[in-house]
């Protein structure tokens, strides 16, 4: 698609029901109240020259290029800082204005290098455009402005450069960093002609900059410019698509030149991100063309054999015959599939269809098992459906934000920027987290309360918060009476009022002082709008599901569900984990969260698919691993998932995989799981296919093909190939037809189609006759299940306890620049920020063990041991250690145990009893794993023609 020009309105477009009408250059113009004249004019096609204004930030009024004349007013006010008013008569083009603007441009240009023809921004530079727009023909002041022309370019950031000689000190970058990103990494230092942009540090890389790219986007010149553009030249085409990293689901313009991706620019009209991005989606796409990509199908009889490259047809035929052999020999239940939360809705739908319709069982699961399956269970029990209640925008109206077990500035950065903006406007923040995350205190942000609880005590904490609400008369009784199931409320209120739930009683368990907890509970309960946001620190516990229900109880009791600014919101991890769950990638549910035992639903699918379907639930991922070891489960089709690295208790997972007779891995890379596979089917990255992703706010967005699939087939086509080889051809010419089938079979998707998505940009489900444009906020007049149901949430301590052998508690998390097990980000220059996992340990615990910062330490649990380097940090409490899990060589999941959530088997990643000691060498597992890796990954390549 040719590169469409993105309109810059110059100042933010306002949302207001009140409008004003004015006249600009003789035309009547009507805009929402509060809109600046600059944007009012641009939104009606009238372009006023501008330099220091851009619509992503508030106006600053420094360049004086956007001057206008207003009848009845003196002087020539800046149109970017002057609000449009009723009855105004504005002139944007007069002889006086033209002369003034030329004068301004002359000054700018006298201080700017005139190497336009060789500049990387040639053709994409606002300074150049403005010189043309104002008709600049001469520069009377000469060309030797004092500009910092001698200063070296700052090329420290792996993705963009800073060339101060080209800077016009418009401060758009400074404002973008502050207002859009909320990091405040940049300032203007010096005065007058000496003023310049500063990172306050030696260079960008060593500064506070988080490489979100907002400043690069804001910069009107080549001062801040993408290295990829410098290298390849300016793009000539663009496709709108969706980021494939996290559950924020940012929308991007993938800009290309001659079939090559040149840059990703956050899309201003993207409803999830509204023009913002983080370092991953914006810059870390290089993995898609990394030389490690496997682009030929491969098979082998035993995992000890080398891989043999084969044709697609041979690979499909081999996999199909193996699955059929296994079912004939061990029974229909002996095979299953794992859908990928990284793949599209259409692709996950096809994999679960293949399992149910072709394998004939319900052994299908997805990685939500190990992250947000408790969200699904808990929200369904209480509210009636398995999804977050709000859109992201809603946070702009929250007055109190309760953030539990989530670290959005690292894991959901674009949402974090929205949240920080609201906090800067005065909303109060309560953080419940064992660790002092950045949001507890960062520039212009200070949490009102940090409830630094002990890992594994969430339920005791939420019960104590609820106890304060009930015992201090803070329940919103009118709301509860009208919206909730009263019998369940009364039983819950009696239960929670018991003195054992009082903050004073639970302080010993949680470690949170009762006074602090009471104050936090009052703050949450008495806010006009209070919203809960949470992450895996809630779900990945033995009581993950109980905690989700506890949060839902608290929100209902205080009337905080069903309108803008409130709600209970999971910050979901993978780009499409919401979608994978919606699409029926669970062993007990069809698409739309309908149980497999429900006859009416089964009939719908039996009609559509023309086969009888199983009515009993199938195996969840951990059950598959266990059943493999018991000899009952023998074949697994894994689409885009690396269970040997990402799932807990690695050695147990490997034992399970090794006991299987046919493991089919479909992936971009020969990942850890592929070491135990018999068939490898090359996957396609998000750039190589069409489809949709659904983000954490239930927003379905289009993924559009930017480049051709490297291996020739998109993932949905691979599943079609496998199904056909299994004797069940599925007829789809395009993913839009798969979506049509989903819509036909799933009431909450009934109104979704590609045509509708093109029209609306994106759609939040439910979308059907009752909600034809989708549903930004759920449970508005009634809960999906009718009345909100309170659930009893007894605290049951985890069996994973510290003791003499394992005295410390390990908890895990993520870092901004890396993503999950690093499959993608570790293959990009993002490793410049983080190239190994470190173990954070409190100075007290380190000293007791004679550990210094940077020492290699052995991290040991009852499941296994690994080694990594220590980082001494007061972010963690004494008794708690913390690490990330981004690098395969650290193998943190060798240490995590197979304890799991009682309701869903979601692993208890967040609590493992460990011991930490100094060591000089890698652990036994690390040594063996490294030795085995090369052996299990051998590929026997046929000699190229003519060789030998």
């Amino acid at each position, binding site marked *: 698609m040719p590169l469409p020009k993105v309109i810059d309105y110059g100042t933010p477009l306002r949302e207001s029901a009140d409008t004003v009408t004015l006249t600009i250059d003789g035309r009547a113009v009507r805009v929402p109240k509060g809109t600046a004249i600059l944007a009012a004019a641009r939104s009606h096609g009238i372009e006023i020259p501008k330099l220091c204004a851009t619509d992503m930030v508030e106006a600053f009024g420094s360049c004086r290029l956007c001057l206008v004349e207003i009848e009845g007013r003196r002087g020539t006010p800046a149109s970017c800082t002057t609000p449009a008013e009723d009855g105004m008569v504005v002139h944007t083009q007069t002889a006086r204005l033209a002369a003034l603007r030329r004068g301004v441009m002359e000054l700018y240009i006298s201080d700017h290098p005139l190497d336009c023809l060789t500049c990387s921004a040639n053709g994409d530079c606002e300074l150049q455009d403005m010189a043309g727009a104002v008709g600049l023909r001469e520069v009377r002041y000469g060309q030797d402005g004092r500009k910092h022309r001698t200063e070296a370019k700052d090329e420290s950031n792996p993705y963009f450069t800073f060339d101060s000689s080209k800077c016009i000190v418009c401060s758009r970058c400074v404002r973008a960093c502050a207002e859009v990103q909320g990091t405040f990494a940049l300032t203007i230092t010096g005065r007058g002609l000496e003023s310049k942009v500063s990172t306050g540090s030696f260079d960008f890389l060593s500064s506070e900059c988080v490489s979100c790219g907002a400043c690069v986007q804001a910069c009107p010149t080549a001062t801040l410019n993408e290295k990829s553009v410098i290298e390849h030249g300016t793009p000539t085409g663009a496709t709108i698509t969706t980021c494939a990293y996290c559950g924020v689901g940012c929308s991007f313009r993938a800009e290309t030149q001659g079939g090559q991706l040149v840059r990703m620019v956050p899309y201003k009209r993207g409803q999830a991100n509204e023009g913002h991005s983080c370092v991953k989606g914006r810059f870390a796409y290089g993995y898609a063309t990394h030389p490690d990509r496997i682009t030929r199908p491969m098979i082998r009889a035993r995992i000890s054999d080398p891989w043999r490259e084969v044709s697609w047809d041979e690979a499909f035929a081999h996999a199909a015959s193996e699955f059929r052999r296994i079912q004939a020999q061990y029974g229909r239940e002996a095979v299953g599939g794992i859908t990928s939360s990284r793949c599209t809705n259409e692709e996950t739908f096809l994999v679960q269809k293949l399992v149910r319709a072709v394998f004939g069982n319900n052994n299908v699961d997805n990685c939500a098992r190990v992250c947000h399956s408790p969200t699904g269970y808990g929200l369904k029990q209480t509210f009636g459906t398995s999804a977050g209640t709000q859109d992201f925008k809603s946070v702009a109206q929250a007055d109190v934000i309760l953030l539990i077990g989530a670290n959005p500035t690292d894991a959901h950065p674009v949402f974090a920027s929205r949240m920080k903006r609201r906090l800067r406007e005065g909303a109060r923040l309560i953080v419940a987290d064992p660790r002092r995350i950045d949001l507890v205190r960062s520039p212009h942000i200070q949490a009102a309360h940090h409830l630094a609880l002990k890992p594994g005590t969430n339920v005791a904490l939420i019960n104590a918060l609820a106890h304060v609400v009930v015992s201090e008369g803070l329940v919103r009784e009118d709301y509860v009476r009208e919206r909730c199931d009263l019998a369940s409320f009364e039983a819950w209120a009696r239960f929670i009022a018991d003195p054992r739930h009082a903050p004073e009683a639970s302080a010993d368990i949680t470690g949170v002082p009762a006074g602090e907890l009471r104050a936090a509970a009052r703050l949450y309960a008495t806010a006009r709008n209070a919203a809960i946001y949470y992450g895996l620190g809630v779900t990945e516990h033995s009581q993950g599901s109980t905690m989700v229900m506890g949060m839902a109880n608290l929100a209902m009791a205080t009337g905080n569900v069903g309108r803008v600014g409130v709600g209970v919101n999971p910050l979901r991890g993978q780009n499409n984990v919401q979608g994978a769950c919606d699409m029926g990638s669970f062993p007990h549910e069809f698409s739309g969260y309908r149980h497999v035992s429900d006859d009416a639903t089964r009939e719908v699918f039996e009609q559509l698919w023309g086969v009888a379907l199983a009515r009993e639930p199938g195996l969840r991922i951990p059950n598959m691993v*266990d059943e493999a070891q018991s000899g*009952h489960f023998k074949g697994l089709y894994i689409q885009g998932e690396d269970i040997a690295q990402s799932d807990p208790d690695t050695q147990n997972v490997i034992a399970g995989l090794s006991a299987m007779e046919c493991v089919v891995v479909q992936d971009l890379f020969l990942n850890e799981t592929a070491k135990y596979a018999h068939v490898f089917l090359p996957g396609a990255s998000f750039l190589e296919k069409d489809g949709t992703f659904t983000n954490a706010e239930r927003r379905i967005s289009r993924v559009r093909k930017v480049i051709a699939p490297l291996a020739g087939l998109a993932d949905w086509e691979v599943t079609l190939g496998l199904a056909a080889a299994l004797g069940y051809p599925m007829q789809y010419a395009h993913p839009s037809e798969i979506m049509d089938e989903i819509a036909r079979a799933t009431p909450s998707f009934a109104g979704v189609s590609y045509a509708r998505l093109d029209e609306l940009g994106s759609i939040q489900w439910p979308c059907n006759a009752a909600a034809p444009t989708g549903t930004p906020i759920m449970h508005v007049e009634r809960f999906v299940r009718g009345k909100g149901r309170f659930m009893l*949430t007894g605290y049951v301590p985890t069996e994973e306890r510290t003791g003499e052998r394992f005295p410390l508690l390990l908890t895990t998390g993520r870092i901004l620049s890396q993503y999950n097990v690093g499959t993608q980000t570790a293959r990009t220059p993002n490793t410049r920020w983080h190239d190994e996992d470190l173990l954070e340990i409190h100075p007290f615990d380190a000293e007791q063990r004679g550990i210094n910062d940077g020492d290699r330490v052995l991290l040991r649990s009852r499941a296994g041991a690994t080694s990594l380097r220590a980082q001494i940090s007061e972010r963690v409490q004494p008794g708690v250690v913390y690490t990330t899990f981004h690098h395969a060589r650290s193998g943190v999941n060798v240490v995590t145990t197979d304890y799991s959530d009682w309701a869903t088997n979601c692993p208890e990643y967040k609590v493992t009893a460990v011991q930490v000691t100094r060591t000089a060498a890698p652990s036994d597992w690390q040594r063996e794993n490294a030795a085995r890796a090369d052996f299990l990954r051998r590929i026997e390549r046929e000699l190229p023609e003519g060789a030998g």
Partner: protein
Amino acid sequence: MKPDKLARMANDIAHNLAALGDAAPAAIAEHLRHFWTPRMRKELLQLIQAGGASLEPTVVEAARAL
């Protein structure tokens, strides 16, 4: 599935539904029907027949309804 794992999973469910009091066994049974495969439920019954010493009494009671 290994009996000790199965028992631990069943007991976890029982502990978390204990707050329901008399209603707990029925809720446990419903949970098992909803989320466990027929083989896992069968193996739980076999465990009970074999003595089931490690199981919570509410699990044993729930199993009667399976």
